[in-house]
């Protein structure tokens, strides 16, 4: 691999695709000029998602073609929407001006952003220099290796591949396709360099959402929230080994912002765009299927429209969402009889008495008794400070302050809903004796950006209290 391939990949993946995503969403929602930067922030994370989607369909519809065919076709599809900027050049320049003025607004902001950039660059350096060795990332890279070899995405998820490979966690083909994309450039499935550097860019994208999108509260507080999200020991460590979690966190955060926007704007264009964004986020991880009830309920409660309009917009959103991710789920139902692919088939093995799979997982992760299940499973964020830092404690303090003062913005309400619904699901499932929601402490990272935001609020409240006194 040479430097030219690296630059081509960086440009296509982290410049072209986010701009293309921005252009598509801009065309759809036609925001006010001052909202362009906000739109940019919540569309950028979906840029690589578009690459993954386009490549999936290309490899599905035209399997077995050359690598240049896939690169060229994908790039063509991404370049096409950029024509919009020739008609509306200000929609391209305005957000960058706004973001620059945000960065330069105060010294504190500048310092915080330098810290955020250090976080990004340190992760980039680690991923550049560290091989892939963690179990799950190895699987994603293997899937990508086989996809590159076969150039046929209909084989995904692999159940009886010729080498014997068996996709054990069958997420929708987002990350694997994105890694396949990186391997198309490098043309060597054994060299993982380009695939490794994708994750740190989602730290950058997530921080951009926090920095630019919100209007409430001091903006420095939101940057602290970004630092708290991606500087959490567990998130940092997972991102450094190219885990999938940073993708689902960032896309979920952006999708939640979209739902907030749609609920406060309330028109069909926004509903279509929100559906697309949620659909793209749902292709990232199997757990993202929860976005439908979580974000759907948030929209229905938060929207100020009449109930008739709310239901109508929800219907539009779901229809729009299904155009993106419907195929994955319909395919699962047709093949496996289940929404989450392979569950029924996998259960056949997992339910064998001799294997004790569930017990093994619970004991090896120290969750086999009720107290340890509560501490290391349900409320891992509170009791595993080595993994989650002190964030959940600060967030608890913020919840207390919010409940007492009853002052919260609509965006905070959306965030609060996500946390409340997630933990409601966890508590109900554990009470019913099902431990699938807690057996991995990474599951709770789904709502981690929202918790991290409230931890930033908690820190801010404590700081105010100390300085006011």
């Amino acid at each position, binding site marked *: 691999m040479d430097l030219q391939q690296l630059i081509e990949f960086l440009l296509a993946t982290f410049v072209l695709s986010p701009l293309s995503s921005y252009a598509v969403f801009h065309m759809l929602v036609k925001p006010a000029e001052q909202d362009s930067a906000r739109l940019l922030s919540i569309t950028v994370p979906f840029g690589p998602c578009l690459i993954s989607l386009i490549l999936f369909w290309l490899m599905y519809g035209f399997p077995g073609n050359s690598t240049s065919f896939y690169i060229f076709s994908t790039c063509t599809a991404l370049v096409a929407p950029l024509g919009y900027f020739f008609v509306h050049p200000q929609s391209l320049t305005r957000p960058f001006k706004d973001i620059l003025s945000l960065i330069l607004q105060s010294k504190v902001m500048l310092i915080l952003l330098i810290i955020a950039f250090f976080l990004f660059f340190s992760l980039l*350096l680690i991923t550049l220099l560290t091989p892939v060795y963690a179990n799950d990332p190895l699987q994603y890279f293997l899937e990508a290796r086989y996809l590159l070899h076969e150039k046929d995405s209909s084989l995904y998820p692999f159940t009886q591949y010729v080498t014997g490979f068996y996709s054990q966690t069958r997420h929708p083909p987002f990350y694997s396709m994105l890694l396949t994309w990186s391997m198309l450039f490098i043309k060597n499935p054994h060299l993982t360099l380009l695939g490794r550097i994708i994750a740190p860019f989602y730290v950058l994208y997530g921080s951009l959402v926090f920095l630019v999108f919100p209007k409430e509260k001091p903006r420095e507080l939101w940057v602290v929230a970004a630092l708290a999200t991606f500087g959490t020991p567990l998130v940092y460590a997972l991102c450094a080994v190219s885990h999938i979690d940073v993708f689902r966190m960032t896309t979920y955060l952006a999708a939640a912002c979209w739902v907030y926007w749609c609920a406060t704007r309330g028109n069909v264009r926004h509903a279509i765009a929100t559906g697309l964004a949620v659909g793209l986020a749902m292709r990232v991880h199997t757990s993202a299927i929860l976005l439908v009830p979580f974000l759907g309920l948030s929209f229905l409660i938060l929207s100020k429209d009449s109930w008739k309009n709310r239901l109508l917009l929800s219907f539009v959103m779901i229809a729009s969402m299904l155009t993106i991710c419907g195929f994955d789920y319909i395919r699962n139902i047709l093949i496996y009889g289940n929404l989450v692919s392979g569950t029924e088939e996998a259960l056949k093995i997992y339910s064998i008495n001799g294997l004790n799979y569930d*017990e093994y997982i619970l004991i090896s992760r120290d969750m086999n008794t009720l107290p340890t299940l509560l501490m290391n499973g349900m409320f891992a964020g509170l009791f595993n400070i080595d993994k989650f*830092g002190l964030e959940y404690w600060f967030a608890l303090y913020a919840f207390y302050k919010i409940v007492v003062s009853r002052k919260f913005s609509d965006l905070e309400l959306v965030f609060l809903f996500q946390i409340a619904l997630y933990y409601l699901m966890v508590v109900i499932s554990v009470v019913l004796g099902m431990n699938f929601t807690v057996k991995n402490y990474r599951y709770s990272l789904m709502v981690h950006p929202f918790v991290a935001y409230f931890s930033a609020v908690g820190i801010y409240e404590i700081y105010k209290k100390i300085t006011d006194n």
Partner: protein
Amino acid sequence: MKYIKRLLIISAAVVVIWYQVSPAAKVFLLRMMEARSFMTKNHIGIWEKCLFNDFEVLRFTRGGKYNFFCYATNYLPKKSTTLVFRQNGFATFVDRHFISMNDSRLYDVYNAKSVDECLHQLLKLNVDYVLTTPYDLPLISKTPVAKLLATPSRSKIIFSADGYDLYLINRRLENVDGSITLSYDSNQMKTHHGMDWSLTSGASPYVAASPLADGKYYIDGTNSEKGLYTGRGHLLMAPSRNFYECKISPLDDYIITVDIAGYGKVCVYAVYYNKNGDLIGSAELIQSIMDSDGKKGTRLFNQFRTPVGSAQMRILFVAKDAWFTLDRVTVSKARTYDTEPMWQGTMSTAPQSPNFSRPPLERVARNKFDEYMGADASEDIQWGKLLENDDHVTLYSGAGDFTDAPSSRMRYKVDAVLSGKGVFKFMTISYPFKENTQKASPQIQSHGYFLFPEDESPVRLTRHFDAPAGLADFRVGFKIIHPRKLGPFIGDMPNEGKVVINSLKIYKNVSSCTEFTGLGTPEWKQVFP
């Protein structure tokens, strides 16, 4: 008040930063140190490091299971299928077919009613090897697969390191027991000179990562000139007739020694062929970074095994931006154990055997066991002396005469006949060589778990293990794993465990790196200038 406020804010900030930032900083520093160490040792810069093969980096920085994967490739024939309980590492780093533990095709295997039925089901799936990791026993201990692995007549460990065990199951055992007679045909081998490099790509991670120029240099064994070789290229050596006239078995070991002087990185590979001359695999034997002054010669050596089905082999030198002079290359049969055991003991009575029945003893015994870690190596140890006998650990010790160079290695074979209940772990405790008056820090090597059959019939345990560099003294121990520790996994196993050691024999390898049998000393010639 103002200062108290400031102090409060600073203290709070320190606490937050400590818990929030320090773990991430630790991750960052560790990764950077690993990278730096790799770059320094390999004389490469950041960009080259970025492009380096993952497997090579991991083997260098982590060793352990990655080394195991590398050597496992050596033991697994090209067309083998291995049942793996940790799929992703194996699938990424071992270029062989496998079946993952979660594969629904294994349903009948897990539900087999007996060991033989389980074996039959595995053979139906073409599985001939099973790879277990240190973490698998609790997961599979109630399945027939665990019982299959604990039945010596049905399975045998062919390679074991760092708690990772590679088992050969019944079908292949038939081949292993009858050793293969090799016939070397020099005419046949000639047709393979100048072999196509693409044949080995993928089989060797290093070659796959750095494709080499085809046939730039090669050497055969027909003449006796020495040469100086520089740049990228490979050196190809036809096998010595003497060497290949011996019988080989996959359970035998060979030693390669290379007297070499030069600069840079050199890797020595074995390329294996079957008796028809078809390529069946390759494996890295030696990897070394030579001294920067390049004048001082060095001796590289390693022990290796040939894979099942191999009849011929070639030794291959791969250099990256290096020059070197080969003075001598020797391949000799290594594992020729003494016919008489160096030590033999029989402990057949129950009081001398570990036995336990009460759960609280676990912790107590562990503490006692820990005490052995600090044991003084200088104490007068005699072979066969039963050092300690408590509920969990029985140690047998012996003083060795291993005062060779610190890089020397010795191979041992332990052959024991045991009976009992429960699960136990076989381990050795080694003491590095130091002056007798000094305390040495011992290191424990686990050589795998062992599960007794339910009927308590005697079973035979054979393990081969390497003595670590600079070994002065070692002890052999059996540690009982308390069933309670395995909790619900152990299922049908009795709630108590014991081991009766009917006999214990320890064999020493008669050949070492300083004492070669000298079966073949090929000469070298530079064919292309």
